């Protein structure tokens, strides 16, 4: 059975089905991270004191730049397909995947340092919410990298048979990836700078 409206817009919504689906999914993700941000505010308001200077701002700034760069390479991967340039698509999506790895490697160094210093979630409320928020975000990065790797590798065969549908898939994967970047844009000042 063919999946309907993978290329042409659905007459009711005006968008192809996967785009409507990913936006609804992202709406649920907003609520998930929103609940955790609310938890953070409640914990911080209720805390008699809040630690400062426990995290490495320089590493987090580099990581912010890495994720922002991965966002433009992701959108360039989609734009390359729109211009029917499959070679550039693979280059840009490959870079996006590598930048995702780069983000996780930097996060690994941060986590390793905290573990060595005994700064674990049980130490205080700050590290509990820090590991929860960044850990959940990290899982989202891994999820995005798995999807992007599939699209870069075996999933890209679709370009030969259904190029418009494949381009829509990359747009949907990109929407998710940009959302992951967007979440980090708020996590960075909230956890590292304030």
């Amino acid at each position, binding site marked *: 059975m063919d999946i309907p409206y993978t290329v042409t817009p659905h007459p009711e919504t005006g968008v192809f089905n996967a785009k409507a689906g990913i936006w609804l999914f992202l709406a649920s993700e907003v609520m998930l991270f929103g609940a955790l941000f609310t938890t953070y505010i409640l914990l911080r308001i209720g805390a008699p004191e809040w630690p400062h200077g426990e995290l490495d701002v320089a590493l987090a700034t580099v990581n912010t*730049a890495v994720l922002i760069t991965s966002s433009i390479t992701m959108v360039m991967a989609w734009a390359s397909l729109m211009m029917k340039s499959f070679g550039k698509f693979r280059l840009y999506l490959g870079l996006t995947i590598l930048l995702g790895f780069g983000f996780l490697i930097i996060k690994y160094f941060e986590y390793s340092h905290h573990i060595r210093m005994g700064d674990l979630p049980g130490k205080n409320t700050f590290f509990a919410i820090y590991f929860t928020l960044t850990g959940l975000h990290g899982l989202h990065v891994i999820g995005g990298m798995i999807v992007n790797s599939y699209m870069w590798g075996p999933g890209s065969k679709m370009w030969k048979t259904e190029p418009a549908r494949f381009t829509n898939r990359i747009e949907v994967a990109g929407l998710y990836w940009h959302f992951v970047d967007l979440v980090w844009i708020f996590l*960075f000042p909230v956890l590292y700078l304030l």
Partner: protein
Amino acid sequence: MDFGDTQAIKKHVRVYVTVFITLLALTLITVAISRLHLNVPLAIAVALFIAAVKGSLVASYFMHLISEKKVIYAALILTVVFFAALMSLPLFHHSNPIIEHNVP
């Protein structure tokens, strides 16, 4: 923007590059302002304002929300309403004397 419309997409690419440079600049500005050690309410307001500007740029241009269909806007407006309700919960907690009195 149609599939294969190279000229239209090239214009968009120029916008993406501009947004990218702006995002990097705003990140550096956020870090620089944090080193000024402003008082806490002002520091929170400035940092969240810059984050909101950066988030809007990502959503508007990289996620194409600036030219999206009504159904997507409708879903997101509903999300914003619920998100705002969620974010206002700490205010209710903070002003509720019954909860404060019952905390051991």
